[in-house]
């Protein structure tokens, strides 16, 4: 495989917890992201799923340099961009852009749509000469499926889905190679979600974009992603192609997550096995020792508390679709999503411990 466009290594973000008014002393840290590694190849969509508080949004913000990592590196075309500043950082920003979750707060209510989409050109005047900007903005509006005549309107005159298109147009303005989308459709209505997901896919083909697509909705992530990483409490617990993750999950958390997703098919209700996890996600300020999932895991043994499982291809799976990185000492394949005939082979031997 070619060298990845973006390579994240051992990314860590700790937010210090301080005490005291005059003399702040650190009493601990919220370990929002604690050793995350993955690669993103050109033209690919990497989905990152996880529940609230797993650190997926923090990863997104570090990728676009809105947060500085506490440790680790983010290499773009081989160069570490996580510690850049000034001109070099500004240049890199052109290539990695972000689409935000909430279309109601991500657009400045006091600016017209034309100003919002045109702002990237004001910040990077070298991209488009002044006289050309208006035309470019109108082109972008057209590309995202909005009427170019709307250029003088204000955000509050649009609906949620339309606002999200404006946000996408702004992200596209500098012709980036990578777009980091943090829950881009979760604030939208069902019928509008599909429109925006299709738009993102169309744009990917048209402009040869690579996406990091962050969401909690596993169905949408499967739809749009080529590869998927599952995060839990600041770490990636399993990563692989969409078929590997959805049809051959080997990490118990992935299995539980997948089994919990309601499937829009009442037939499946009767013969679906649900793994209902007990308890809640522990606090990232005080994560469990060893494997972070062990407090909710039905397979947990002594070893899980003592030894941190590494994200690697489990030895028990030398080949086949189950042979993808999974951070579990007792990785075992378990099919939890009902099988739908036209997709994929029957899968490996269905191993099932416990």
């Amino acid at each position, binding site marked *: 495989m070619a060298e990845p466009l973006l390579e994240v290594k051992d990314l860590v973000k700790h937010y210090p917890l301080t005490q005291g008014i005059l003399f702040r002393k650190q009493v601990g840290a919220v370990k929002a992201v604690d050793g995350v590694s993955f690669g993103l190849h050109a033209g690919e969509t990497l989905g990152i799923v996880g529940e609230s508080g797993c650190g997926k949004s923090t990863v997104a913000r570090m990728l676009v340099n809105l947060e500085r990592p506490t440790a680790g590196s983010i290499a773009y075309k081989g160069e570490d961009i996580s510690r850049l500043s000034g001109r070099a950082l500004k240049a890199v920003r052109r290539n990695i852009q972000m689409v935000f979750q909430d279309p109601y707060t991500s657009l400045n*209510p006091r600016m017209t749509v034309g100003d919002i989409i045109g702002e990237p050109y004001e910040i990077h005047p070298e991209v488009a000469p002044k006289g050309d900007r208006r035309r470019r903005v109108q082109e972008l509006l057209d590309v995202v499926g909005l009427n170019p005549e709307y250029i003088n309107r204000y955000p509050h005159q649009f*609906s949620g889905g339309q606002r999200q298109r404006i946000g996408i147009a702004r992200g596209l303005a500098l012709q980036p190679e990578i777009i980091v989308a943090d829950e881009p459709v*979760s604030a*939208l209505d069902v019928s509008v979600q599909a429109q925006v997901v299709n738009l993102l896919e169309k744009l990917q083909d048209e402009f040869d974009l690579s996406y990091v697509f962050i969401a909690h909705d596993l169905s949408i992530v499967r739809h749009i992603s080529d590869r998927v990483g599952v995060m839990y409490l600041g770490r990636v617990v399993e990563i692989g192609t969409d078929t590997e993750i959805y049809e051959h999950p080997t990490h118990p958390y992935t299995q539980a997550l997948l089994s919990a997703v309601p499937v829009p098919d009442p037939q499946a209700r009767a013969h679906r096995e649900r793994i209902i996890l007990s308890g809640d996600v522990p606090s990232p300020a005080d994560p469990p020792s060893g494997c972070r999932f062990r407090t909710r895991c039905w397979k947990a043994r002594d070893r899980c508390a003592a030894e941190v499982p590494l994200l690697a291809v489990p030895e028990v799976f030398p080949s086949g679709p189950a042979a993808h990185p999974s951070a579990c000492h007792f990785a075992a394949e378990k099919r939890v999503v009902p099988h739908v005939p036209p997709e994929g082979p029957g899968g490996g031997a269905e191993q099932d411990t416990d």
Partner: protein
Amino acid sequence: MPDPERPEPAGYDPVGPRPKEAVSPTGQGGPMDLALDEAESVEGIEKTAGPGAGGPRERPRSLWSDAWHQLRRNPVFVISAALILFLVVISIWPQLIASGDPLQCDLAKSQQGSAPGHPFGYDTQGCDVYTRTVYGARASITVGVCATLGAALLGSALGGLAGFFGGWGDSLLSRVADIFFGIPVVLGGLVFLSVVTSTTVWPVVGFIVLLGWPQIARIARGSVITAKQNDYVQAARALGAGNARMLLRHVAPNAVAPVIVVATIALGTYIALEATLSFLGVGLRPPTVSWGIDISNAASQIRNAPHMLLWPAGALSITVLAFIMLGDAVRDALDPKLR
């Protein structure tokens, strides 16, 4: 009524239909392929919009023009604005409605009641109360406007910067503001202003700015902190925008509304404060004509000649009220939470 700017999770149904979203009229958002086919896309807009919305094209409406539109329809605003306009005009050109000279007095007419051409009567010095009341507006308006401008500029600059950058500067500013809050207004005025000998309005303006800026700074700091957490500020940062752009383009325009509201209301109270200080003899001094001085002179004579007190005090009350009403109306128009 739900706020149009409030984020809403998918499928969340507010108590009422969302007015703003509901009126977003010639809504398109058609299917993706529409973008490829311009002609069809335009058709799609009309279809989606349905009849009624296809007719008059909606004009771009900024939040400021929305606020102005609402202000104009608010009777409280219309009345207070008219009053304030009148006060400003007569403070610039008092001759327009008062032909006499406020300093030309005739002791022989001391404390006399109203007479033809002198509807409000005379004060102890024999000066015309009507003329003095009219001329008194100038001092009040000058002090009010200048002090408010000074406090608002100083306060919002300091508060805004502190809120935007945070860190030790922010802590320092907050503590300094607390110290200024601790100064008792009247006592402080007596101490500071009694050492000043100038007869202009500037020492009073300066003193009010000194006491007034922390209040504005607090409001500005709070609203800047709220505004800078919005995703659009992060979006600008992700685009590579510098601090100046983020502060001036994105944060300030969205943080200024509460400052305007508080400053407008403060203007009324500053006018009252000037009168209080002048009443105590440390504010404005003769020969400057001020309602506070006149009220002070009249207070001891309230039993013999109540008219001497009534007119300047009434003018003062109406002026203060007008500014506070204006502030209320502006708040209604600018503060989305009350909409």
